[in-house]
């Protein structure tokens, strides 16, 4: 379980998700507004950089496609920010086309705080440190910049099929 610091206590009624563009425009969604975008049932494999995988996990969450349908940006890169200060960088095109979600449930249960609840980023085709726990928003970047673990030794990209673990 990846936890680079204390578990931030965030309740759904105080949780908010935002996307800030390169022009400083910020779109915001409350817990209810996010769910109203439409929640997908997802069956997917996940891969941790510490050499474990879980196959056929069931998740529920909102596709990033639905969020970015409401955002105008010309930037190609994203920095995900979490409650507690964690960051991770991801190219925008890897968050689209049904490949990434804001997830609220796993294995039929709401995500516990220890597993990133109330909501975490879910980017299953990349190593799981990219699936930021306690996600609170995305900030668009015109050029690729490293997030927390990417700054401290891990791959800027993190493709498990290419075993992109470290620099």
């Amino acid at each position, binding site marked *: 379980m990846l936890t680079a*610091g204390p578990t931030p206590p965030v309740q759904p009624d105080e949780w908010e998700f935002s996307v800030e563009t390169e022009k400083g425009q910020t779109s915001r969604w409350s817990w209810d507004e996010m769910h109203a975008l439409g929640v997908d049932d997802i069956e997917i494999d996940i891969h941790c950089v510490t050499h474990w995988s879980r196959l056929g996990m069931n998740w529920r969450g909102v596709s990033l496609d639905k969020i970015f349908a409401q955002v105008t940006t010309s930037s190609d890169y994203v920095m995900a920010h979490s409650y507690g200060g964690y960051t991770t960088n991801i190219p925008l095109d890897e968050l689209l086309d049904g490949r990434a979600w804001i997830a609220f449930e796993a294995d039929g249960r709401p995500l516990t705080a220890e597993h990133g609840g109330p909501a975490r980023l879910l980017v299953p085709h990349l190593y799981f440190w990219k699936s930021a726990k306690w996600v609170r928003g995305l900030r668009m970047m015109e050029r690729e910049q490293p997030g927390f673990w990417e700054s401290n030794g*891990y791959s800027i990209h993190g493709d498990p099929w290419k075993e992109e673990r470290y620099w």
Partner: protein
Amino acid sequence: MTHIDGNAMSGVLSELLTVEPTTARSRCANCGDVAALAMALVYPDAAGWVARCRACHEVLATVVRGDGRTWLSLRGMTAIELER
């Protein structure tokens, strides 16, 4: 003044990094607290070690080990005090 390449620091750095680091004091770059690394709050994350300031909880240092290599970041410290 012209710069020289980093090899010039190898002698001084290898000398410094052989000291016992947990007793070395450092100043938090975020809040200014001065404390020995032994006082830091350490989160032994599966991905690596994360040492946070006892006062403000900002990250002081990280250590990532893997693939036969180690990555050390001290970016949350303004400087480290070492005994000579």
